[in-house]
């Protein structure tokens, strides 16, 4: 039989416009370019994770790709019980390493740092806003990077741009506690806007679409949105004009990479880190707002990118 890659989504489902979908795109790309076959299983509740992984065991899958932090425990349990089955998990890693699991993780804070720097430079009110879906590391790492980037801007320029909604020290901030309510996305953005923020970073998957809708109503001169995961200029085409930029995680690229490794028998347990240096994370173009970003700021950003890749700028302070 052909090489088969199987994917288990988290409760967001395969068409979540976010990381499940992007990861599945990696499988589809591999289907097209490498001639493999792909299958997926959607989880409807947290209790499905283990059952879903279970039903893919039994040899029909050459690699099982699980998506998301929330599947971490279930993937670990299945991997340990089935040492001959290869697994890869998107957005998660294990310490210590499990020999038959390859974790795909992303140094999102690198790109978020750039976004924070950019936003601080573009903001007119000097106030930025951020909120998250659930208080988990893969979400808060965006928020960390964003805040630190703004702080770095303040340090460079002697400004006092503030970021509402997240404190990287205490790990406390604004969370919708879900990844699906567009209403919440709207309401949280409204509240941040009321407090003076003119650029908001929603780190909550589709919830952010609600924030984008608000920005559209208010007008982009009053409120701009920074997208996450994919370049939302392309996936939220209806509201594309509200996005200043997006912090992208190229999960399709890493998933495809993992499939290729497995086919070539170069699969090894451990971690595959997507970073600015290998293109696993990035800052999307400014598209319609290109004109708003002064050339000097663009140059500073280029310098920061280099600095982060070189290691001369530490994004985690």
């Amino acid at each position: 039989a052909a090489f088969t890659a199987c994917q288990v989504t988290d409760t967001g489902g395969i068409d979540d416009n976010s990381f499940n979908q992007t990861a599945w795109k990696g499988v589809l790309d591999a289907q097209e370019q490498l001639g493999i076959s792909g299958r997926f299983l959607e989880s409807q509740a947290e209790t499905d994770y283990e059952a879903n992984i279970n039903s893919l065991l039994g040899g029909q899958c050459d690699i099982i790709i699980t998506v998301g932090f929330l599947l971490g425990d279930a993937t670990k349990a299945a991997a340990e019980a089935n040492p001959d089955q290869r697994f890869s998990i998107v957005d998660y890693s294990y310490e210590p390493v499990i020999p038959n699991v390859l974790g795909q993780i992303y140094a999102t804070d690198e790109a978020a740092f750039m976004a924070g720097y950019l936003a601080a430079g573009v903001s007119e009110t000097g106030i930025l806003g951020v909120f998250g879906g659930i208080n988990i590391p893969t979400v808060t790492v965006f928020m960390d990077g964003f805040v630190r980037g703004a702080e770095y801007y303040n340090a460079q320029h002697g400004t006092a741009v503030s970021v509402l909604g997240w404190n990287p020290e205490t790990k406390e901030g604004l969370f919708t506690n879900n990844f699906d309510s567009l209403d919440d996305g709207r309401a949280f953005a409204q509240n941040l806007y009321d407090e003076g923020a003119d650029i908001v970073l929603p780190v909550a998957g589709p919830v952010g679409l609600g924030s984008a809708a608000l920005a559209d109503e208010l007008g982009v001169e009053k409120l701009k949105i920074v997208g996450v995961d994919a370049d939302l200029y392309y996936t939220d085409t209806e509201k594309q004009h509200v996005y200043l930029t997006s912090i992208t995680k190229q999960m399709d690229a890493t998933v495809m990479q993992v499939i290729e490794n497995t086919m070539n028998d170069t699969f090894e347990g451990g971690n595959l880190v997507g970073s600015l240096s290998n293109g696993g994370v990035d800052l999307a173009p400014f598209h319609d707002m290109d004109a708003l970003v002064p050339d000097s700021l663009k140059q500073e950003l280029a310098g920061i990118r280099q600095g982060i890749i070189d290691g001369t700028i530490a994004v985690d302070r």
Partner: protein
Amino acid sequence: MTDRTTTEKLARGRLIGRSEFEDLVLVPIIAVAAALILGALTMLATNVDLATIGRSYVALLVGSVGSLNALSETLTAATPLVLAGLGLALGFRAGLFNIGAEGQVLMGGMAAVIFGFSFAALPAVLLLPLSLLAGALGGALYASVAGWLRATTGAHEVILTIMLNSISYRLVDFLLSLPAVQKTGRADPISKSVPEAAELPRLLTWIDPNLRVHAGIFLMLAAVAVIFWVLFRSKLGFEFRASGENPEAARFAGMRSGVIIVAAMAASGALAGLAGANQVLGVLGRATPGFSAGIGFTAISVALLGRSHPVGVLLAGLLFGALEAGGRQMQVDAGVSIDLISIIQALIIVFIAAPLLVRAIFPWVFRRAQGAKG
């Protein structure tokens, strides 16, 4: 009674008594107060300081009724709840526990959206009313399936409507992926937008473009009046109530239970469908999978809290709307966690639902109960 009561005396209407005033005014006020106190204690227990508690309650008030924007948000949140709640109340009165409002909201909303963009060429005076009608029909038809099965096969309406709910989620996903419905150029489930002529116009954008309150509130008020009339003034409503109270007596009086069940479910579904249409035509402008947002389930509480009376449902819906709008403000102004806010909201509702609890806790406020059953 020793001597014969005269006809006039017999036919004399009742005055609203003291106890009704207590039930309708005093009890809710004290219930809210009691819930707030309990909420404050909960917050204290979780280390929220007093100043924050004060600030959060001010925010709750300000965010629900303290500004034009707050009122607008309260009304916007209340409208679909009242509409769907009226539908459920109608069902309850007819003895039907329609748990399927959520699915009917979805079907109504889908019908309204699809009609709205499919007949975009119609003149505006027709397009909006017909889109709303499509919504009502969508909900009514979907609910009648359960009504018909209940009437002909005796299957329990609760299980039928639960199952129809889960079918509806899938049906929406499916409809939203049809080329004729899906927004062009999109791969995810989202419908085309309805033309402006099909939208429920916003009412106060001339004051502030952010005020979301829209013409749906007239729909809501009209629905309250119509349902009041139907339930208490019309023949149909009399039949609904009779078969809800005592189906056997209704049968003996020549009412046809099967027809009544189907009619009551259809009417109930029509209102839920209107609630869905109100959301897509008034708030969202298009349909996505989650647009029902639990309205159909919250409406169960709204209907029960309003004691299945149209005016009660209106008040209960406004309360829920106010709690939603005010809760949002609490989170922003005082940084109280959404968890605590939800708990306080639920407490308020429990206290209002349990008037005797209020009477028991604060007996001195009320006149002594008389002639209570032993």
